[in-house]
């Protein structure tokens, strides 16, 4: 089966000479039909430009973009308009026409596509019903809340029954509750209508809750991509690790660990919780089998792509030999980090990420290798838990 969208060494350069910025740098990527594909990156990483290459709001400087089997790189404006009409797009600022009512906004793409007035009326009613704002048809956008505006945006984007929906930071201007509502709606769009969705975001929670597969962008390049669960459960690149750290601070930072050791001087271990390994059951069963006391002192479990992910930090008490045997047992099934005891502490492997220097300004293309992969990630399964934005939420991410 051909991919819904294929990028082949797609590159977009803005400006010329010394001012030239490689907004998208040699991206090769396939987005399959019917999936929700997340593109995550900090602002200036090039993700908005990448998504605009799909509907040719921006055109590539070199490389190719293939949409639905059609190479759109060679198309001229009138043909591109047809391609665009088959791709829906929603925006961070909703971009509704303030001079038209909700129904007028949703009807606009149908007018462009040449639908009759009667058909438009029927379709608009159907769409507003689908997104749950049928009662707002005659209201002007200025009177709607953010969440309602985005629903109108989604209805408008779906009007001509596109096969692809592009969501450019579609929830970034919404509060957390509304964000969840809109994400749930996008999930429905994907499941009930079978529409391929490309979600551009800088918010890890968005990708975590709906993306099947994900690409992480930095300085115009895709630095890591794959199944959302795999990418975030074992992030290889530092940017990815930082994103994971924003969604779940399940591992104690060195400062937190310092306090923990004060309260819990005994042996502490951090056990990874994954879909297939190291579930809470394993930990508790192990404790029972080996006759070891255990107290959960830190941790968190959340979901990525609807599968469990996180870790538990446990203080162990009892016979030393039994503790060693338990740790050995757990190591059979999952990652275990031995934190030692207050008297004999061991370094946390993930603190390395926190101490690493901050990445350079994301808008400058410097520092990217020819293959677009940044060198110098951090070691083994380390999750950054630096003291930057966000709060420590023991179990806070569990849902």
């Amino acid at each position, binding site marked *: 089966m051909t991919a819904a969208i294929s990028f082949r060494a797609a590159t977009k350069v803005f400006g010329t000479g010394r001012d030239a910025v490689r907004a998208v740098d040699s991206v090769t990527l396939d987005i399959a039909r019917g999936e929700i594909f997340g593109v995550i990156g900090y602002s200036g990483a090039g993700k908005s430009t990448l998504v605009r290459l799909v509907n040719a709001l921006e055109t590539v400087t070199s490389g190719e973009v293939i949409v639905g089997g059609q190479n759109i790189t060679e198309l001229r404006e009138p043909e591109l308009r047809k*391609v*665009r009409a088959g*791709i829906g797009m929603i*925006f961070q600022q909703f971009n509704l*026409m*303030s*001079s038209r009512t909700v129904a007028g906004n949703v009807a606009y793409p149908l007018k462009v596509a040449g639908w009759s007035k009667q058909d438009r009326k029927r379709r608009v009613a159907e769409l507003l019903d689908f997104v749950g704002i049928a009662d707002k048809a005659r209201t002007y956008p*200025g009177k709607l809340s953010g969440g309602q505006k985005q629903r109108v945006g989604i209805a408008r984007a779906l009007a001509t029954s596109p096969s692809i929906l592009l969501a450019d930071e579609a929830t970034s201007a919404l509060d957390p509750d509304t964000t969840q509502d809109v994400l749930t709606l996008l999930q429905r769009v994907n499941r009930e209508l079978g529409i391929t969705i490309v979600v551009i975001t800088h918010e890890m929670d968005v990708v975590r809750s709906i993306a099947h597969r994900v690409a992480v962008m930095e300085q115009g390049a895709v630095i890591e991509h794959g199944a959302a669960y795999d990418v975030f459960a074992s992030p290889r690149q530092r940017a990815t690790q930082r994103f994971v750290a924003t969604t779940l601070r399940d591992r104690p930072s060195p400062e937190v660990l310092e306090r923990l050791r004060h309260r819990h001087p005994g042996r502490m271990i951090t056990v990874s919780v994954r879909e297939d390994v190291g579930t809470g059951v394993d930990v508790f069963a192990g404790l029972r089998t080996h006759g070891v006391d255990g107290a959960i002192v830190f941790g968190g479990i959340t979901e990525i792509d609807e599968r469990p992910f996180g870790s538990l930090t446990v203080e162990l008490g009892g016979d030393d030999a039994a503790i060693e045997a338990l740790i050995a047992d757990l190591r059979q099934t999952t990652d275990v980090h031995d934190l030692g005891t207050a008297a004999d502490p061991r370094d946390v492997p993930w603190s390395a990420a926190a101490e690493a220097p901050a990445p350079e300004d994301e808008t400058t293309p410097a520092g990217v290798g020819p293959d677009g992969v940044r060198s110098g990630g951090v070691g083994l399964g380390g999750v950054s838990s630096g003291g930057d934005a966000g709060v420590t939420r023991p179990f806070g991410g569990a849902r």
Partner: protein
Amino acid sequence: MNRDWSELTPILVESIRETLYMVSITIGVGGFLGLVFGVLLYATRKGNLLENAFVFAILNVAVNIVRPIPFIIFITAVGPLTLATIGTTIGNDAVIFAMSIMAAFVTARIVEQNLVATDPGVIEAARAMGASRLRIIVTVLIPEALAPLILGYTFLLIGIIDMSALAGYVGGGGLGNFAIVYGYQRFNWEVTFVTVIVIIGIVQLAQVLGNWLARKALHR
């Protein structure tokens, strides 16, 4: 004064009629041309829908040259063009011709400035829906900027009334001519004051109407 007014009233009424005639033709012709020029100025600017450095530069320079010329000088300066186009350089029609040209360039700037404030995201959304550039200009750009455009045209209307007062200098009529000929030149202050009050009335009416329409166009 009573002796005068029985004679003057019909002339005043005729002057009002002439002013309204000159102003309405000018706002129709000049306003429409100005809308086209203004849209082109906006759309040909770098990064916009019809990006075209050449057209933009020509229009931009033309507007900058014409706009600052005092209108009384402009009427005579476009004389040859007026003669070539309508066959005379005197009378109301000659003034209307000059006013329309001036109004077109003034309007171009007003329109451009109001379009610049349009949210580029809305334009992008329309492009993403597959709308053509011309369709976007007519069905998105102008409707989205309608309220400020109405206020801009109200401002323009008042400027045109101002310009029309100079018609008397080249053999035209209207309220300006009335005030000069029957007021100033005959030392009749009363006529001048009455004319001023009539003009204030017309301007107020235009402004109230413009504000009302703009508010209706603004769906907030």
